[in-house]
């Protein structure tokens, strides 16, 4: 794995991480630093603390406790010594690093007119390492194909956080854009894909250029509010497939309806554990009621495997997790 993200850590923390066994290091997903509290890492789905000797422990008191100097240095390095360039990021609560890794922040907010104006006294960091798992979308894509129109179906992907939603969407974008349909009868070329990457997670763009392989025919609108971004893309980039992360606001539904009328196929994700969950959520229930989506995918993660179930527009189960398991995670 690319290890450039290690350079954002101050020496003390970097040395601890370097002491991790290689197998564990390769599985790192989250690194959590909280000032004055135990240093925590999450590798392969398991949360553990790191001792000053670089060993794993489940006893918080034995763990290394990062001090104010550690967090100060970490923030300085994370922001490229320029906190002032990150005002918008701080308002949103996260910073994107080269390579698409994301750092969530917590601290004390400064309010102006009831809205968060700035984040100060930042003391909590959650470094989420982005993974590019090529091929993870292979078993799923055949269920999303629209053979009559030679394109993909309107799809909603559901899962709780941390289950690999973004990783899956990223791979689907790459496959659709490259025309690798993973089905013997699907023999049409790749589609023009537009990704609205509000939180810079799907593409991990740095200076507007994606860090991940998103296929040859993909355009990315980075850091753009979803509803606005969808409209901009439809108007200006003539996409055939539109990909958005985490829909849920009223204006998102409006933009999705617009996309539908424009003849653009949509692949969207949302937080949730099952399709029934969505009925209690105003915007999403409206979209379901209007039979907007033709496929619903629910993701699960068991051990190190990514599993999914597929439902059609009537929400009938086409494929359950019992029947077929997704490809094993790398």
């Amino acid at each position, binding site marked *: 794995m690319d290890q450039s993200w290690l350079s954002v850590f101050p020496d003390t923390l970097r040395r601890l991480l370097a002491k991790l066994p290689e197998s564990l290091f390769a599985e790192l997903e989250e690194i959590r630093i909280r000032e004055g509290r135990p240093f925590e890492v999450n590798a392969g789905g398991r949360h553990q603390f790191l001792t000053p000797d670089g060993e794993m422990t489940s006893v918080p008191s034995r763990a290394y406790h990062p001090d104010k100097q550690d967090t100060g240095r970490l923030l300085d390095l994370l922001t490229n*010594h*320029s906190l002032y360039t990150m005002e918008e990021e701080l308002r949103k609560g996260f910073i994107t690093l080269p390579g698409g890794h994301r750092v969530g922040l917590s601290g004390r907010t400064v309010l102006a007119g009831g809205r968060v104006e700035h984040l100060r006294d930042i003391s909590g960091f959650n470094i989420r390492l982005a993974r590019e798992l090529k091929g993870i979308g292979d078993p799923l894509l055949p269920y999303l194909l629209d053979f009559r129109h030679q394109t993909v179906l309107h799809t909603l992907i559901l899962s709780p956080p941390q289950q690999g939603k973004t990783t899956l969407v990223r791979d689907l974008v790459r496959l659709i854009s490259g025309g690798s349909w993973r089905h013997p009868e699907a023999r049409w070329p790749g589609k023009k894909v537009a990704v609205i990457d509000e939180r810079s997670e799907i593409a991990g763009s740095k200076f507007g250029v994606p860090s991940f392989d998103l296929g040859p025919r993909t355009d990315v609108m980075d850091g753009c509010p979803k509803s606005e971004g969808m409209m901009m893309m439809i108007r200006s980039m003539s996409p055939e497939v539109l990909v958005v992360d985490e829909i849920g606001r009223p204006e998102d539904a409006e933009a999705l309806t617009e996309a539908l009328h424009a003849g653009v196929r949509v692949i969207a994700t949302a937080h949730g554990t099952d399709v029934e969950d969505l009925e209690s959520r105003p915007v999403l229930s409206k979209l379901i009621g209007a039979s907007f989506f033709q496929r619903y995918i629910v993701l699960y993660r068991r051990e190190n495997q990514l599993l999914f179930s597929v439902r059609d527009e009537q929400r009938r189960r086409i494929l359950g997790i019992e029947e077929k398991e997704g490809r094993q995670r790398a």
Partner: protein
Amino acid sequence: MLKLLGAALIISAATAAGWFQAKQYANRPVQIRKLILALRRLQTEIQYGYTPLPEALLRVGEQSGDPIRPIFASAASQMNAPFNYTAKDSLQRALDQEWKGTAMKTAEKDIMSQLSHTLGTSDRQDQFGHLATAVRQLENEEIVAREEQGSYEKMFKSLGLLFGAFIVIILY
């Protein structure tokens, strides 16, 4: 003959030393002015350009010329890989390494050193304030430096020659 040659050597060396000292007094206010202008440019880069600090320092350094450039360039390079020092450490180290090459004194160095504690660590408005404070302090130093230039520059120029002559007379 040899004596005469030695005397000429002593006088020219002493004169050169005097000139050098005078030159330092003449250079100091000029360099302080350059530093002030550089900080103002940095203010603009931060306030309106949202330029990240290492890049802003490099750019401003290039525009400002010697002796500001080596200081800013050294600070910028130490912020980047492979050093990855913090903004504060980088600037402090750059000041320690490169300050000898300037005609400026410790008062100006202290102002820059104070600035290093806050540079890059807060929002734009705050940065603007800190830079403005440093500029104001430097302007005060510039006035002092100009006064010193007025009183000492000429003096050191002639003092060098006179001191050389004095030694020659004693030795002769």
